[in-house]
């Protein structure tokens, strides 16, 4: 993040929805809470920018901040049970052509599958498939060995394939 208002504004518009999308994977935060977390994460990243090692990728560092904030917020919520129906109740807008093209049935299927995943797996899938983090970057954010991350992703894909076969096989 550069030290200028313009750069800060650009960072804000770029990273805010990314942080909110990751916070969404926790399954318990309302839209308002997600954007509060996102704003706080950007502010913290900006305040701590002097400590950021510019030779490294920004994403894992930033998402680690978002994750800490999400976990803190979870604690404040006293670890309420996950409420996937809360997310399900929030209609996902159909915006992109790609999104429009995706069959409604497929979308509902994937949505149900993702919401049924344990929180840690939702986090992982969000980081890898939404934020496009590599295995090693996701491992950094989640503080897990790369091997574990790779194995979990393989298990998630396998579970999705099995669920698909059960539904449509």
């Amino acid at each position, binding site marked *: 993040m550069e030290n200028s208002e313009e750069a800060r504004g650009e960072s804000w518009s770029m990273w805010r929805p990314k942080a909110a999308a990751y916070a969404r994977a926790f399954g318990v935060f309302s839209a308002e809470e997600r954007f509060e977390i996102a704003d706080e994460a950007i502010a913290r990243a900006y305040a701590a920018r002097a400590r950021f090692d510019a030779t490294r990728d920004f994403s894992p560092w930033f998402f680690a901040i978002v994750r800490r904030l999400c976990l803190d917020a979870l604690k404040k919520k006293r670890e309420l049970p996950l409420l996937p129906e809360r997310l399900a109740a929030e209609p996902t807008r159909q915006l992109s052509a790609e*999104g429009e093209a995706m069959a409604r049935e497929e979308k509902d299927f994937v949505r149900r599958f993702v919401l049924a995943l344990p929180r840690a797996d939702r986090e992982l899938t969000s980081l890898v498939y939404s934020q496009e983090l590599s295995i090693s970057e996701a491992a950094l954010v989640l503080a897990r060995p790369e091997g574990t991350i790779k194995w979990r992703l393989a298990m998630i894909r396998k579970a999705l394939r099995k669920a698909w076969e059960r539904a449509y096989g």
Partner: protein
Amino acid sequence: MAKLGNTEAEALLRAYFKEEYEHERVMSRETPPKAWPASLGRATAQAGDTARKARRVELFAACAIIALSLSPALFDAGAAPLARKAAALYSHGAGERLLESLIAGSAEIVQSYSKSNASALMRAP
């Protein structure tokens, strides 16, 4: 529906999360931050710290000038660290606020600087 392979499974997940991200992106535009995030408040607090430091410097200068005004001998000595520092602060513009502070009440300023220094200053002839 076709059988799902690893690539297709990944494609489905990517498409789902891409749409979620688009959703958040639109919401982000529609819901600008309500207030300056809390941690940026820390920057404000830091600015407050700087202001307090500046205020302490002024108070220090005030005490020094009071001491000097009460003690021509000290002023004449010139070698006293207090006098040197006060002179330096005064030459850097601390004097304007200092005069206001003096008008507001020199005794209060001296007390707020520090009890030990204040008592030393008050004992000055």
